[in-house]
């Protein structure tokens, strides 16, 4: 029965002790702790919010960056293409030019050669004529020293002239 009858002494002390503990802790203990925890909680929440924002920003920036990169790639490809085309054109032109010039050179060379050739031929012809004349003069001179032969020849020529006169 003693167990369920509160004793007055213990009641008195319990009120006193709990009252003092409550007073001390409610004044100097828990408010300090909970305020600090609350402060940290809000700080952490703020940090999380900031981190989220930063992440979003970063995502946006990454997207822009990617876009720019893509654009750059495209431009690069275009420029390269263009350059390739120009180079090809230039090469083509150069080749054509070269060909034209070489053709012209060849043509002029041919003309020159032809001229030279003609000249050489003429020269050869002249010298042949000279040589032939000289040779024939020498031969004639040597043959005319022989009287018989000179007479026969004279005869032959006269014959020939006669023949010609007869014919006419």
């Amino acid at each position, binding site marked *: 029965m*003693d167990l369920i009858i509160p004793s007055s002494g213990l009641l008195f002390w319990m009120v006193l002790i709990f009252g003092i503990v409550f007073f001390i802790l409610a004044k100097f203990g828990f408010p300090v702790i909970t305020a600090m925890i609350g402060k940290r909680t809000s700080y952490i929440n703020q940090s999380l919010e900031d981190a989220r924002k930063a992440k979003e920003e970063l995502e946006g920036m990454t997207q822009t960056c990617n876009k720019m990169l893509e654009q750059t790639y495209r431009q690069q490809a275009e420029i390269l293409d263009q350059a390739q085309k120009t180079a090809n054109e230039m090469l083509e032109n150069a080749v054509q030019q070269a060909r034209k010039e070489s053709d012209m050179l060849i043509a002029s060379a041919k003309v020159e050669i032809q001229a030279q050739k003609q000249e050489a031929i003429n020269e050869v012809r002249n010298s042949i004529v000279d040589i032939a004349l000289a040779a024939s003069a020498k031969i004639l001179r040597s043959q005319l020293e022989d009287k018989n032969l000179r007479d026969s020849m004279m005869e032959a020529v006269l014959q020939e002239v006669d023949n010609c006169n007869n014919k006419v």
Partner: protein
Amino acid sequence: MRKCLLLISLLLAFALPPAFASSHGEAEEEFDMAEFLFGHVGDSYDWHVTTIRGHHISIPLPVIVFGKINGPAVFMSNKLSHGEIYKGYFIPEEGENAGKVVEADAEGNELRPIDISITKNVFALMVNAVLLVWLILSCAGWYKKHDVLTEAPTGVAGLMEPVIEMIENDVVKPNVGDEYRRFSPYLLTVFFFILINNLMGIVPFFPGGANVTGNIAVTLVLALFTFAMVNLFGNKHYYKEVFWPDVPLFLKAIPIMPLIEFVGLFTKPFSLMVRLFANILAGHLMVLSIVAIVFITAKMGPVLNGSLSAVAVAFGVFIDCLEILVAFIQAYVFTTLSAVFIGMAHPKHH
């Protein structure tokens, strides 16, 4: 593992009984179960620490009494041991005042003086209160000395912070409502006060082991504080719901509902008081009953005593673990219900 346990229990069976037989043998009287149980869960004027070879070692505590006949007196409790009379005060061993300090009038009737002695429970309360205040203040000190934004809590703060935060966020905030900041110091104090007293009650040696929260006076005061917190700060909607609730008029004309509501004001703290008291008392009694098996079976022969002692120890460990859980749960439940009652006293106008 199983073999190991078996071996230990067998060894205990043969090793323990002679040891008990020598100390418990002829000199000791019959084991008194009721005295053993209620001696341990009850209050006393001195703190019995241990008994070595029949010699009681106890710490005397101050007795403070105000008698009608003998006047006020303050003295140590060992002055009254073995039925001695000091300044007219003595402790009768039988009768309705057995175990309590009384004085005798001219006819020889025993009269109870006003008794505010520092008994075992009061002393344990003081020790635990000092321990609690030290714990919380050193925790608060940590926060004053350190930058809370850059440092993680260490030491006592690291131990206490998660619990404080849990109570504040999971118990106080959802149950009390908007005004929770006003009440959270009280609810936190209640939680830690009950928790530390429960836990110290499980510690089987001095300065633990006092059945503080299993004492109805202690739980009564705690319940009264909650009652005060609920009703002193209740708003007008709360009192309107108590004395003029939203029910058909005939239930208010003959004041059935107000009566029920009014009784309800007191049943709430009453349930708090009884719940905590009964749970902790039951826990103590359970552990003690299991320990008592060792002494009850002391005269039943070595085999039975030894094997049952081993079982008692194993089961005692189990119950003690359970009690640690209960210590926490009861503190939590008391706090939660207090928070709920406080929250009910602050209904929003609807």
